[in-house]
């Protein structure tokens, strides 16, 4: 099955989708390699779900092209869809079927040959931790198990690409951890696209992140690139007896100081010189009453807020 061109599993160019006058997705391009996990991030209504619906053939784009493992989704939809596993935002479960019956149906519809079907079912059940509940009706399962059943139907036919739309919504923290580790496992054998608005999820699981805002891509890079993007780093400094702001600003390495609440200062610095040590020494020498000195996390959250807010202002 793997061919030379199979390296790139999902390639979407210039996807746009309009609903009447409203543009839900505007010129979004996605490229995904085998074994990569792409985090699809954005505030509610950013166009994540619309994009995923287009990638899975549930919605026709207004313009743009999609190919899955080199197969054009519009020219050969059946061949292309056979390589995708999709878990929509609302898991499409038949409550009146048992977990096994449902997965059996999913496998049949995805043309898993009769001889391999039983093994494929067992594999999906084991991977998603559903073996114990395989004979239960889906309608009687808890939300966490239903979500896992949803993931199981997306992987039962061993697709090249797994697309998961907000797989951890509505789960308790334990279930979220389980689902995350499951996604991490999936990343080893499949290409995964994961949409979410939970930031630590992306940082914890994904190799790459693409941030959507108002239908357009505002950021797309590997996770490591985030730190560089957010070049300026900051410290939070708390002093019981603060001196004049200028005095702090004069400390070696400090690029800027601004008040951040009562007796708190946000100290920013650029480059390699970290002024923390110097600040602490000064504070002790001159009895500023130091009670807090913490580096602010330079995280996806900053980038996210920065990008999505900036747009709102402009």
């Amino acid at each position, binding site marked *: 099955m793997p061919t030379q061109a199979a390296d790139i599993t999902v390639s979407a160019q210039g996807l746009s*989708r309009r*609903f009447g006058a409203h543009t839900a997705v505007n010129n979004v391009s996605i490229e995904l390699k085998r074994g990569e996990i792409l985090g699809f991030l954005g505030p509610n209504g950013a166009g994540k779900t*619309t994009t995923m*619906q287009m990638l*899975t*053939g*549930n*919605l*026709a784009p207004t313009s743009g092209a999609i190919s899955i493992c080199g197969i054009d989704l519009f020219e050969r*939809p*059946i*061949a292309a*869809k*056979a390589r*995708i596993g*999709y878990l*929509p935002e*609302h898991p*499409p*479960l*038949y*409550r*009146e*079927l048992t977990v096994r*019956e449902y997965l059996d*149906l*999913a496998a*049949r*519809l*995805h*043309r898993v040959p009769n001889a391999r079907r039983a093994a494929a079912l067992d594999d999906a059940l084991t991977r998603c931790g559903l073996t114990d509940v395989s004979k239960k009706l889906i309608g009687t399962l808890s939300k966490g198990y239903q979500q896992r059943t949803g993931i199981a*139907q997306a992987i039962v036919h061993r697709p090249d690409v797994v697309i998961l739309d907000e797989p951890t919504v509505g789960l308790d923290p334990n279930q979220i951890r389980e689902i995350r580790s499951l996604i991490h496992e999936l990343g080893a054998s499949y290409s995964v696209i994961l949409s979410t608005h939970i930031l630590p999820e992306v940082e914890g699981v994904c190799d790459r992140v693409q941030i959507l805002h108002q239908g357009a891509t505002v950021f797309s890079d590997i996770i490591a690139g985030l730190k560089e993007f957010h070049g300026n780093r900051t410290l939070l400094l708390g002093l019981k007896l603060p001196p004049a702001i200028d005095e702090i600003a004069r400390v070696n390495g400090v690029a800027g100081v601004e008040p951040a609440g009562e007796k708190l200062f946000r100290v920013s610095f650029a480059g390699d010189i970290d002024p923390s040590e110097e600040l602490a020494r000064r504070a002790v020498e001159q009895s500023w009453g130091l009670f807090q000195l913490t580096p602010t996390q330079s995280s996806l959250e900053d980038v996210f807020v920065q990008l999505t807010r900036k747009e709102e202002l402009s």
Partner: protein
Amino acid sequence: MIFAIARKELKTLFTSPMAWAVLTFMQLILAYFFLRRVQDYMEIQAQLIQMPNPPGVTELVIAPLYLTIVTMMLFVVPLLTMRLIAEERRNQTMVFLISAPLSMTQIVIGKFTGLTAFLLLIIGITTLMPLSLLLAGQLDFGLLASLSGGVALLAACFVAIGLYASCLTVHPFIAAVVSFCILLALLLAGDAAVDGLKARGWTIAAALAQVLSPFKNFEPFSKGVIDSYAIACLLLLIVLFLILTIRRLDAARLRG
């Protein structure tokens, strides 16, 4: 693939009380009707013998039985078809089928096949009633075959119409009302239109109107006549509504 979807539809039907209730009530009512007819026949048998060319038991007992099935299907089929697509869209499980490597045609024909198979089961079980008369006498097998074949075609027709109604809305109940209305309109207007046009001598228009008149097309079957034009009309109506359904669902994918 079509078979896999048909299988799923049958499974869903039989996990709901609806299928069992429909099977039970239809059999009860039809059995009662059948026995009444048999009793009436026994009472007038003495007079029939004196007639020069008396109608047989098949014409007097069994033909009305099949007409009763048709009347009951008018109410029952909309109830069975209403969920086919409306409920899938409502529960957002339609995505499951659309994301699978299937064409819309396969999905629609699969659903159509599943429910038609269920109705064939009802017709099949009902046919056992007339067959039980073989214990006591002879049957006109030609008429019996034409009756059950005609009812089966008509049932498929109703399913196609119900399927189309089911894709128009996400509320199953509204789908049932819509398909019942379409069936009723075809029953009333179709017959009248065909007769009216024929009376004026517009034969081509009448022939076209006959396509939209499934009940008119059932008439020859009930007399034991195999009318190839009537069969063609019924098949055409089935194909027409299936195509409408497919197009409608494909359009939903474009519209979003």
